[in-house]
């Protein structure tokens, strides 16, 4: 027994060594041979690629017959890749020419055949390639695969249909969505967005009949493809029981801007769902209608922080109403609301511009507005400007404002600035303001120091 086990063990070890050695030798041989052939293959590919590019027009027009390149795998791959890449960027004339080329050269038929006969990833690849060819003849096979294919094939067909992007393709996708399909939501949205970009009204007609799972998807797509002046149809969406649909309706309204949009959006700002209120508030901001200021001021006091921030950002975009908005916001006696608004004013650079107005006629209104801003949290910025503003009158008036506010932070900050002026740059960079950022980016700020950040950043 002992003898047997020893012999067995030794034999196993010998076998292991032999097999490992053989596999190792094969792997090493493969690595080195592959590297040798790879270099040769790249040289060949570059040469053939150059030839194809030089004779591209003759190939596409058929002056060089397809038979000369389509039976050589490398040549065919190069021609296909170049043609499909060009199709992505082609204008309508060039696209038509390339479609003819796909038909005449037999490439289209080849991929149609592959999409029908092949299985697995080769079939999916063929379906995707048919989509890239943008040929209407591919639609029946793509629609058939979408209807009957396995989930993965159906998703590939869906993406290809999305690439073709016609209303017919979009309608086929909508038909398929009646049944469950295991596909990422983003893929469906992207495909539908491309399909209905040219005809959003066709999509709108489908939304009321879609079930609860699909309706939010369609509503979101509608918000992406909607155009100004689109026909009515959105009105049913604003009273939809699903909050996602109502939110998407708010986005659509901001783009379509029909008569009475502000009123409808004002109603949506009181929705029970915070994200509907958020979308409606953002949409009101897009309208930039001064009559919506009271509604937005109300949203400044919303229970949701994001809604408050969006309302503040919408209010800042209202042209020429800064002081009135600040006054109205201060009347709400909601410190959070005022702080959100003042931060947004600060970020947009409006406060810095208001400060410049202190030296001009009508400074009393500016003075009152800045006191509200200081009470809302803009003390640091005002203290900075009080120290560094080039106009002495402005500096003096800012001092008065800060004294009037009686804020300990402001007093401490001013004292610190005055104690150590050497630590401060000569040119002030307004904190968090668009002006400050643009000044830095254009290199005009902070004593002309070179900005080390690359342009891409």
């Amino acid at each position, binding site marked *: 027994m002992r003898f047997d086990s*020893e012999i067995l*063990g*030794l034999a196993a*070890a*010998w076998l*292991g*060594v032999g097999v*490992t*050695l053989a*596999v*190792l030798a094969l*792997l*090493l041989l*493969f*690595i080195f041979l*592959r*590297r040798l052939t790879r270099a040769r293959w790249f040289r060949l590919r570059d040469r053939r690629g150059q030839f194809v590019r030089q004779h591209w027009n003759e190939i596409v027009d058929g002056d060089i017959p397809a038979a000369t390149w389509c039976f050589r795998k490398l040549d065919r791959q190069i021609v296909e890749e170049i043609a499909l890449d060009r199709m992505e960027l082609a204008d309508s004339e060039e696209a038509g020419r390339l479609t003819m080329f796909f038909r005449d050269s037999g490439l289209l038929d080849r991929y149609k055949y592959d999409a029908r006969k092949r299985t697995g*990833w080769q079939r*999916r*690849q063929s379906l*995707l390639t048919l989509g890239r060819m943008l040929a209407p003849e591919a639609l029946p096979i793509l629609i058939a695969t979408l209807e009957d294919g396995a989930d993965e094939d159906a998703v*590939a067909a869906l*993406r290809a249909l999305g690439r073709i992007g016609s209303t017919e393709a979009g309608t086929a996708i909508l038909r398929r969505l009646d049944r469950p399909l295991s596909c*990422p*939501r*983003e893929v469906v*949205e*992207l495909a539908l967005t491309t399909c209905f970009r040219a005809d959003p009204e066709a999509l709108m007609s489908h939304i009321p009949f879609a079930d609860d799972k699909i309706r939010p998807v369609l509503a979101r797509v509608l918000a*992406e493809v909607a155009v100004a002046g689109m026909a009515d149809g959105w009105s049913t969406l604003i009273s939809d029981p699903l909050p996602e649909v109502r939110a998407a309706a708010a986005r659509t309204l901001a783009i379509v801007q029909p008569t009475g949009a502000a009123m409808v959006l004002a109603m949506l700002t009181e929705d029970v769902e915070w994200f509907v209120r958020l979308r409606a508030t953002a949409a009101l901001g897009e309208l930039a209608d001064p009559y919506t200021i009271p509604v937005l001021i109300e949203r400044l006091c919303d229970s949701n922080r994001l809604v408050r921030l969006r309302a503040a950002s919408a209010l800042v975009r209202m042209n020429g109403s800064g002081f009135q908005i600040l006054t109205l916001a201060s009347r709400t006696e909601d410190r959070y609301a005022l702080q959100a608004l003042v*931060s947004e004013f600060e970020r947009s650079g409006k406060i810095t511009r208001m400060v410049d107005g202190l030296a001009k006629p009508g400074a009393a209104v500016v003075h009152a507005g800045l006191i509200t801003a200081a009470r809302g*949290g803009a003390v*640091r910025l005002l203290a900075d400007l009080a120290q560094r503003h080039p106009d002495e009158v402005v500096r003096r008036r800012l001092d008065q404002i800060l004294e009037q506010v009686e804020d300990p932070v402001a007093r401490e900050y001013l004292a610190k600035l005055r104690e150590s002026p050497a630590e401060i740059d000569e040119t002030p*960079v307004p*904190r*968090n303001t668009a002006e*400050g*950022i643009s000044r*830095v*980016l254009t290199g005009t700020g*902070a004593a002309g120091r070179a*900005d*080390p*950040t*690359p342009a*891409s*950043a």
Partner: protein
Amino acid sequence: MTAFLRTASWLLAFYYAGTNFVYLILFVQSIRATVEHHRLLKGLWIHRVRGSKLTPPISILVPARNEQLSIVESVRSLLALDYPEIEVIVVNDGSTDGTLEQLRQSFRLVESDILHVSEIATASIRGVYMSAADRRLLVLDKESSGRKADALNAALNASSAPFVCAIDADAVLENDALLRIMAPALNDPAHVVASGGIVRAANGSTIVNGRVTRVRLPRTALETLQVLEYLRSFLIGRQGWARMDMLLVISGAFGVFRRDLCKEIGGFRNSAIGEDMDLIVRLHRHLREKRGKYRIAFVPDPVCWTEVPDRLGSLARQRARWQNGLADVLWSNREMTLNPKYGRIGLLAMPYQWLFEFLAPLAEVLGWAAVLVGSVSHALDRSFFIMYFLFGYLFSGLLSVGSVLLEEMVYHRYNDWGDLCRLVGFCFVEPLYYRPLNTIWRVQGLWHFVTGRNSWQLIHRAGFGQGSPAKEPSAQI
């Protein structure tokens, strides 16, 4: 004595056969995973993802402690990444050097009054800074708690995107790394909860403006051996485990996670030594307990370049810490082991980690001891021993050559013939020189775990471009 030696030798032989069998399975799985991934990429049309409004934003979390030499370069390369929407959150974790000052000067940081809500408890935040040069950059200055996990949690609290990407401050990402690492999540957003990328050693390569412009092998043997180890660990180990849905580690140097799930499980565990592995194990645990369908993916081509230690002392400390971290994670999640409730994670992945990772250094030491005692007592069958030693040596070389093959076939980063020959040559040096040393360091790590020594030891770094030591992505198979 002879009976003991005989039993020990059979036990070790089975143990060894088991390890090699698992490695062989991983090798086959990794080849299949590589092929599948390339088919996925072919059909994904990355350029459309890049231009799509529907691509989910990512918050990049960068914990930085005493990184003044490389932080500016790293942040610049992150801001220039090719991805539709990112925010970069750098956490200056109580640095005692000029890390914050470097950032302040280079990116025109201004202190902001933004409210920082610590949903996950962290050490106190001293200040929040926004950049006047790039609004996508946010810098948090916090007190140090001596834990990277704490800094990551602070960044997690400040993040706003649905996905967060944790990376090391000294890491350099390739330009399209985020697009590529997000491929599984974009393809299957309902189920993919985390995705890890490959980490490679940047030593020896040329880095200009935060981009690797020329890939070369490092000059020293120690660094080159680590290159090989990383290749084997990521291309075979991680990829193979991910293919079988049993990936337990996503490197802390580069990984993407769903933010909501990270917060649900309380973020990174503060007391964890290997916080990256700990997070993934807890994610598995949480999702298995919720009985949700999920996937943790590994993507082999989004490359993150990092410096590896070039000094033996630094490397020894790093490896001891990894082993300590592994033991800590396994111990704190020990209820998962062999528990059917956790499916293949509990029944296969965790026992593998205990048996072939946690116990591996002890088994190796036991093997050496058995050989020594056997030779002294003349009980060792020399021909038997030589055959097994040869088999082990060749099999180890085979796995390393396999990873070089995967690299050569698919990724092809080392274009120089000299580099290829050196890499293949080192496949046969590694088992003789590097592996025994690694075993000693791992035993030290286990000792640290037993004695409760788990303090963070800073590793000296020279910064990119000067070819020097570095950091820690876990690199065990």
